[in-house]
């Protein structure tokens, strides 16, 4: 087929994504250099780097960046490590496997807003929550999760959503593992740990890369869980970049500063993406 036709077939996707990327991005760049507060219309003079300075010196900036990274790394580590261990343990036929699969994947389908509401009210509420009831039955003081450990609460919610995804991907991958190889290793006296370390882990390299990549895309942008549960607080304890920018733009009406923040988020995402593509990219087939 002629090159021109193949180009024509790709054109709609490429052009739409280009437009989707370039127009808003250039508008963001433009807004970030002018004074633009919705409360003071008409005063849109050029201010240079002031918005960036303002955003970076905001007391919420450092906490937001570190919270974003802590959230990303913790959830990645929890879902990948726990996911690999659990899936290695349940990777054998047992009674009711189909039902277990269905139960396991369910949290992945729960919308983030509902996820946050369930955990905030029914699990973590210090008076009526299930956690409070458990710790009281065991004779401990109930913990007020959302105000004492806000970031950890968000991490729990997000991990709950993504762990099932990781487990299912890994279980599916393990089913294609060569059993003869495993048996041969056993004959040669390899222990369970050796098989896990030298056969299972390498076999999972690609699935792990896929899980890390997909999760990173979604974890950098966690918003609804924070919006619904902690509202970023107390203080900035559970504010991530997404939430901080939202705060600037829609609650303080400062479009200029919010745009500067948005550009910073783009920058951070790109840094993470570069690391990521280096680390796991070679495991992804293109």
């Amino acid at each position: 087929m002629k090159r021109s036709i193949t180009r024509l077939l790709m054109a709609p996707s490429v052009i739409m994504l280009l437009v989707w990327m370039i127009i808003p991005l250039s508008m963001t760049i433009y807004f970030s250099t002018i004074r633009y507060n919705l409360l003071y219309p008409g005063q849109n003079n050029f201010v240079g780097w002031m918005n960036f300075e303002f955003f970076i010196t905001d007391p919420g900036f450092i906490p937001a960046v570190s919270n974003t990274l802590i959230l990303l790394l913790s959830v990645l580590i929890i879902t990948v490590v726990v996911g690999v261990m659990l899936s290695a343990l349940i990777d054998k036929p047992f009674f009711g496997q189909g039902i277990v699969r269905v139960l396991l994947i369910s949290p992945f389908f729960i919308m983030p807003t509902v996820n946050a509401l369930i955990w905030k009210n029914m699990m973590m509420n210090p008076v009526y929550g299930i956690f409070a009831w458990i710790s009281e039955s065991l004779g401990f003081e109930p913990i007020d999760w959302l105000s004492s450990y806000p970031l950890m609460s968000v991490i729990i919610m997000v991990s709950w959503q993504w762990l099932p995804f990781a487990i299912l991907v890994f279980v599916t991958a393990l089913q294609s593992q060569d059993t003869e190889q495993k048996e041969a290793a056993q004959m040669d006296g390899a222990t369970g740990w050796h098989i896990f370390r030298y056969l299972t882990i390498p076999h999972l390299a690609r699935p792990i890369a896929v899980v890390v990549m997909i999760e990173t895309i979604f974890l950098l942008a966690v918003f609804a869980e924070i919006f619904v549960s902690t509202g970023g607080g107390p203080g900035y304890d559970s504010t991530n970049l997404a939430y901080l920018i939202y705060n600037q733009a829609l609650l303080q009406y400062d479009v200029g500063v919010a745009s500067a923040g948005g550009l910073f988020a783009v920058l951070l995402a790109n840094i993470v993406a570069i690391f990521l593509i280096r680390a796991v990219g070679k495991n992804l087939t293109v």
Partner: protein
Amino acid sequence: MTLNQQRKLKTILTGLFAWTVALVLFFPIFWMFITSFKTELQAISVPPSLFFEPTLDNFRIVQERSDYLHHAWNSVVTSFGSTIIALIIAIPAAYSMAFFPGKRTKDILLWMLSTKMLPAVGVLVPIYILCRNYGLLDSKTALVIIFTLMNLPIIVWMLFSYFKDLPKEILEAARMDGATPWDEVVKVVLPLSVGAISSTALLSIVLCWNEAFWSLNLTASDAAPLTAMIASYSSPEGLFWAKLSAASTLACAPIVIFGWFCQKQLVQGLTFGAVK
């Protein structure tokens, strides 16, 4: 203990363990479901009550208060609409990249995926202002456009990985028999990849259904999908967990049940064919 008994014991232990993990992870959903049939008093009783007389009042009140069906319809329209549009745009692109790869195909794919890395907050303000200027705030059109573009990279990538694994000989044979490129796609490629396309569509529908950032920021009531309806229940005034649970159950039930039926396909789709 004989070897056989040992094996049996191992199977039982594995099963017990797997069931425990599954039940623990499923518990919050189960609890939400149970709570939606309680009265408000039962919902906050300490210790939590497991046995009670179920009531359907909460569901009735939710429908009255926030018109569930209206928001559910919005969710259906935006998720299915954007998925269909995205597929129409993505299939030709994935096809041409998979069967006629050029020098830059790999770069284009990576670039597409990198647009997914662009955080939504980075472009929230301009999109909000564009929508406001064109009167698209609180409209389903805006959500459909955004959802389409949001999922396009993943859809192209997933379809590409499937098409790439189709045997090229079949296409060549079809061409020998005088098939036009159009015939090739419609009569050969598409029938062979019904499974792939449907699992891609599934994933896209799930992602759209649960998308919260854009729907919370760009809609108010007319076009608000279920995610936005639920957020309106998050205000702290008073304890009305039973109604909240009913609303949540209603919001999640369609997609969870949908997902249960398609979970196998979905996992295979989600992994870009990396897991066979």
